[in-house]
């Protein structure tokens, strides 16, 4: 069993790398979509709403397969890793945009009034007043989304990427040590998720250290 550990840990690194790359895409897309939904242009609002509803309304697995199997038939051939990062990023980004929007909208009205009274431009108020406070509000929900993202990376094994799930599946076929292998994989995923959860809550208690009672 121990002999397989390096092979499996390498797979875990692949999973983590895909999760990290998708997280970057997800955060970027989430902010873009959230600002679009809050903008005054009706077209921007409508297209962002379509994006969010579309990606939240269909299964991640369907999205992955669609990008992987269907896009090539339209002549767009993407590398499996690109498909994985794109699908995961866009999917989590759709959920994330609601988190970002909720956090921005929930900023206290008094704060906005104060910014206006101090003659701040809307842009400056957003950057200096709203976003720093929204950041704290959205931190824990984003932590949850990151754990979901990490769990979802298991699906990329189904589009030929050799992540932890893929390697476990293959080793199982070769060795039949089913119980040990699958228990080990559950434990590895659990530890990775705990890592994310602990670092997010550490970050949270750091950023709220002055505002706690």
């Amino acid at each position, binding site marked *: 069993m121990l002999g397989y550990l390096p092979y499996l840990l390498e797979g875990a690194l692949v999973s983590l790398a895909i999760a990290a790359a998708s997280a970057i895409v997800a955060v970027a897309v989430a902010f873009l979509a959230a600002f679009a939904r809050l903008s005054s242009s009706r077209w921007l609002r409508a297209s962002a709403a379509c994006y969010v509803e579309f990606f939240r309304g269909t299964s991640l697995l369907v999205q992955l397969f669609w990008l992987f*199997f269907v896009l090539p*038939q339209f002549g767009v051939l993407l590398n499996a890793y690109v498909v994985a990062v794109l699908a995961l990023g866009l999917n989590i980004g759709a959920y994330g945009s609601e988190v970002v929007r909720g956090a921005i909208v929930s900023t206290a009205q008094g704060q906005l009034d104060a910014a206006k009274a101090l003659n701040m431009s809307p842009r400056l108020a957003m950057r200096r007043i709203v976003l720093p406070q929204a950041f704290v509000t959205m931190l824990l929900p984003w932590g949850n989304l990151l754990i*979901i993202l990490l769990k979802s990376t298991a*699906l990329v094994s189904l589009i030929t990427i050799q992540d932890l799930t893929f390697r476990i599946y293959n080793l199982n076929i070769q060795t039949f040590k089913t*119980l040990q292998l699958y228990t080990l994989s559950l434990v590895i995923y*659990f530890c990775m*998720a705990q890592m994310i959860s602990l670092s997010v809550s550490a970050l949270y208690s750091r950023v709220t250290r002055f505002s706690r009672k």
Partner: protein
Amino acid sequence: MESVFDLHFAWKILPLLAQGAIVTVQVTVVGFGIALVVGLPLALARRSHLKSLCWPARMLIEFIRSTPLLIQVYFVFFVGPQFGVVLSPLTAGLAVLGLYYGCFIAEVYRAGLDAVPRGQWEAVRALNIGLTRAYRAIILPQAIPPMIPALGNFLIDMFKATPILSVITVLEMMTRAKMIGSESFRYVEPITMVGLFFLAFTLISSSLVRRLERTTKIGGRKRRDELLAPVTGV
């Protein structure tokens, strides 16, 4: 050169996919029923003052919630037979979905029960009302309505998770779409149709949930709940 989306072919595979859609809906309904039942003892154990009940429930919930559904599906389907538990793909899939979502639902139950004001319990005690009657007549009628939208969201989430069962050959829509794809080498129609089916179903059901939310929610709490809208992931 035929067109990219062949309507004739789409029409031809529609009955096959529709059969898959029925299985998908059945799996969702039965799986959700199991999850509702499984969640209850977990929530009660989690709320218990006995450490020997509370801790195992807490660990189980935490573990199941933070590991991928896909691996859990493989685990039950592949490891079971080694211990003489040979489950059909459908049974294994239902068991895993039920347990996975049961753990999320346990937290909904817990939050709902915790949200009943303490004063209600004190009133129950002051009026010398028995435990069963207290739950039935006083606590549950207050605890259940706020849970309903959250449960509705989990139902939709579970519906979207069912394609995962295609890895253990449950004959739901995704499995059939892949079978059609590998036989005909045409993936555009089946996978797009599966996607559209999910989209239509989810849009309709989430607007229903939103309507429920509006009727069951007391104004001020909405914004916070939106932030913590349940997402389970797979």
